[in-house]
């Protein structure tokens, strides 16, 4: 058997102290980490179980109008929270579109941010992969599949980030609360994940031993509640990663779009928010032309990594247009039976 140390952290300080040791990994639900360990993709020497850390699973509406979600809150608990569903509907919709009910009941929101790519060449534990083994090359580059990136990739890595949850978080300006030896810091979710560049082995801004303790949605995010949708195009109705997804939201102001938000999943190694596309919508009346223009801008610079994923660029434009159309039509009073599905319109 693979031998590793297992310790259960009693306090955050405790976790931070042990987490700094070489070869350490934090364990929450383990829905991704344990699979990767079984597959020999990652071999931590020290597992620090953080599931018993007190006070990290709350979902709390703050007096300033913001929402703080503890890092250990379960995906299903967040999705089912009435305040979340009402105030940040596309966050709930994205959560419910992810994985399966069983996984959502176990998985934590902090873990969701930390999940690794599903690139087949990363998970097979043998192919050259710069992320798994820096300097070994990228086996995916010569045989990209539909899950590979069309935005923000480099010659070193063409993987994508698989999260649904992170897409509306990026769109809504969420920030990540991080504890470290030096204290607490806050990083915008859009800046939390790193593009591959020359160092695909670095996936987030977390320094060794740092721990995510919470996510915060700013008060401003609640203003989008009436016109916000997450749309996920996928190869089957459940338990499938997005081929392309989009979170679209707007604040309508006297028949015009006051502000818009637009972010994509399935395109890049991080949730792909395009503020230029958002800006193009501001001040315009909601219209197919305006959405098409935003979609065009959003996919500016997109480049396929192979024949198999070239379609994703046009698909992403259409997903953006549809998501914006749905958002403009208004958030449904209740989440659809098939959340985020094109067939789930209410």
């Amino acid at each position, binding site marked *: *058997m*693979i031998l590793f140390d297992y310790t259960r952290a009693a306090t955050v300080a405790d976790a931070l102290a042990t987490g700094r040791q070489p070869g350490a990994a934090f364990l929450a639900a383990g829905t991704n980490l344990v699979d990767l360990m079984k597959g*020999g993709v990652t071999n931590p020497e020290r597992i620090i179980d953080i599931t018993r850390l007190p006070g990290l699973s709350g979902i709390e509406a703050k007096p300033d109008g913001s929402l703080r979600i503890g890092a250990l809150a379960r995906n299903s608990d967040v999705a089912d929270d009435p305040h979340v569903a009402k105030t940040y509907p596309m966050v709930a919709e994205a959560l419910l579109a992810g994985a399966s009910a069983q996984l959502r009941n176990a998985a934590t929101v902090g873990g969701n941010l930390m999940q690794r790519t*599903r690139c*087949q060449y990363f998970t*097979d534990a*043998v*192919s050259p992969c710069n992320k798994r083994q820096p300097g070994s090359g990228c*086996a995916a580059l*010569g*045989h990209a*599949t*539909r899950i590979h990136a069309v935005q923000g990739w480099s010659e070193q890595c063409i993987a994508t980030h698989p999260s649904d949850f992170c897409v509306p978080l990026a769109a809504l300006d969420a920030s990540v609360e991080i504890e470290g030896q030096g204290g607490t810091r806050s990083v915008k979710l859009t800046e939390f994940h790193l593009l591959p560049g020359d160092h695909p082995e670095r996936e987030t801004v977390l320094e060794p031993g740092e721990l995510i303790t919470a996510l915060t949605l700013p008060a401003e995010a609640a203003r989008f509640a009436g016109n916000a949708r997450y749309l996920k*195009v*996928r*190869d*089957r*109705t*459940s*338990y*499938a990663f997005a*081929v392309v997804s989009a979170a679209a939201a707007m604040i309508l102001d006297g028949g015009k779009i006051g502000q818009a938000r637009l972010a994509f999943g399935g395109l890049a190694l991080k949730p792909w928010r395009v503020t230029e596309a958002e800006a193009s919508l501001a001040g315009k009346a909601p219209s197919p032309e305006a959405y098409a223009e935003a979609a065009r801008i959003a996919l500016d610079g997109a480049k396929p990594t192979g024949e198999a994923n070239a*379609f994703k660029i*046009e*698909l992403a434009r*259409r*997903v953006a*247009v*549809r998501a914006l159309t749905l958002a403009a039509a208004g958030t449904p009073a209740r989440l659809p039976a*098939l959340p985020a*599905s*094109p*067939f789930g*319109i209410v």
Partner: protein
Amino acid sequence: MTSTIEPVRHGSSIGQPLTRRDGPLKVKGQARFAADNLPPGTLHAALCVSKIARGRVKSLDVAAAEAHPGVVKVMTPENAPKLSKDPDLKDVPFTFRIDVLQNDKVRYANQPIAVVIAESLEAATEGARLLAPTYEEETPRIGLDAGEVFTPDAVGVGAPPEQVDGDVEAGLASAAKTFTGTYETPAQYHNAMEPHAAVASWDGDKLHLFMPTQGLAIAQGRLAGLFGIKPTDIHIDSPYLGGGFGSKGVPAGPQVLACMAARLTGKPVKLVPTRSQMYGPMGHRGPTRQTLRLGADEAGKLMALDHHILTASSSFDDFFEPAGRVTTTLYASKSTAIRHEAVRLDTGTPLFMRGPGEASGSVAIESALDELAFDLNMDPLEFRLANYAEVEPFSGKPFSSKALRECYAQGAKAFGWAGRPLKPRQTRDKDGFLVGTGVGTATFPALIFEGMARAEIRADGSGTVEIGALDMGQGAWTALAQIAADGLGLGMEELTFNMGSSDLPNAGIAGGSGHTATAGNAIHAAAQDVIGQLTELAVNDQASPLFGAGNAGVTAAGGRLTRRDDPSRSETFSAILNRAGRAKIEGKGKAGADAAAQKSYAMHAHGAVFAEVKVDPDLGQVRVSRLVGAFAAGRIINPHLVRSQYYGGMIWGLSFALHEKAEMDPRTGRFLNDNLAEYHVPVNADIPAMEAILIPEEDSVVNTLGVKGVGEIGITGTAGAIANAVWHATGIRVRDIPITLDKLLG
């Protein structure tokens, strides 16, 4: 049908929609599958499999693995127990070559190259990792264009690769409309929920195995040959299978490796392959590229039907997907030809997979038929009826029964086919989704194999039926017991029914949709034997109220024999046996193909499947919104179980049309989706409201019970119906299966 078959039922079990007798055990986790067994002292084995597809293993770090705590032994070609027979020798029919460490050659990715045996599964697994194999790698041949094309000697199980009836070139030349199209179907993997587990233990030269198998005697024969022992010295327990779909028809290499590991260590060994290790040594549905050339006259009568198939087998063994077989039975055409060609690739050997041949062939021919019907401006159902085969094409034999017209009619009615626009892209629902409908014809041969059973009735009035039959989820524990109860004239509660062990009479293979026919008729014959002997006792005994009734003058039901001509005169089994001083009466029965009937008749089950799909016009995502199948398959033993089989088949057809595809990296031959997260099969949310209509069909020829198979037919027809519906919705014809959203973006 004009003839009415003799009633074969004495009791009241056949035809009843009983729920699965093993259902409560399975729901409670109490049904013991092979891997649930752990005899005292059992060691755990883990496979080390090849990460290359072609070449040889250069080194294995055996020392590192053996140094790992808990590892007992590493089995490699160096120390593997010597087999009595070369595992590549095909001296017995139905033998497939397996990889059991006979040398250092690698013939496909995921091929076992060593086995680590340890005190725990964890130690074995880590030991396998520590072997860190190095290879001498050759360029693998992956994909239908990678090999040299040749004509195989046979396709499927002994079928001819080429068959010609009439002159297709002349037929095409004389046709008013012709159509040519090429369709591709990918390699698919069985993915039974239960892996090919084996728990093996030796007692001298006797071998005991807990192992799921679809063929107990086949497995005994194969293992006996390999280990140089008698088949009767091999005992296999296989009470439940977590699915087989053909992949458990013959013992897989890893199951043989478990036996070898047990021999090497002298201890019981349990070996359960991982999901990804099942992509290679357990068979798969071979890929196909099928070109159909069709011609029809003005009235829509087929003048020519030409079906060419390119498929693939492994570099070292033969199984060729017989995708053209369906064309020899399905439609009437003035001329018909099928021709199979193949290439050899560096993959595991393909194998029969639920609906072998028919499933792949059906999606191509049903698609092509619709493409030609549209050219002819004909309704697809009308076109099929215009080419209805009244007798079997090629052979010219009449069908033993064929209620296909009724299937079309009732299916169309239930579905609401009438009034369907001929042109595609005509219909949108209230939400703007494109809506289309399609039809496909379902067909599968009605097979029967050789099988035996034994039965007895005891003086206390109870009875037993025993047979080495197998339940792989289809419900054999229930349906066969129903046949047994009726055969013996007992209620289900008076019957002890045993199956799933090699100690019981050989019931042949649970495959080819022939198991209910084979095992059922063997059981029926054994029961008839018992009832015959009991009758003999009674009618010749002056003390019996049945005296003088004659052997044909009584029926058995409710634990009694009763005079046909006077139901008031009857006697219990118990009374007859007690008076005769007999503790029990034993009987035996056999089933098998009736050569004379097979010479005179073509025997197939039939059906018609109707599908409605919705397609997002911009995003290409497809949702099947309705599926209706109407099937005629002879006598229905248990309508509840049969309906489930049809649902399962239709869902597989949906999976075939929209989801399943094994992906390999052509550079390495390694799989990209050898797991159930990424090898897609549908989830519950993909499955629409379904209806399976059971069309009554009597068949006095096919076998005594008049049953045909229902296990595979549901896939055929369904995939084609969905492909046709997608075209009808969108106007886009996808000829490259599966139909994924990227192909529908327009």
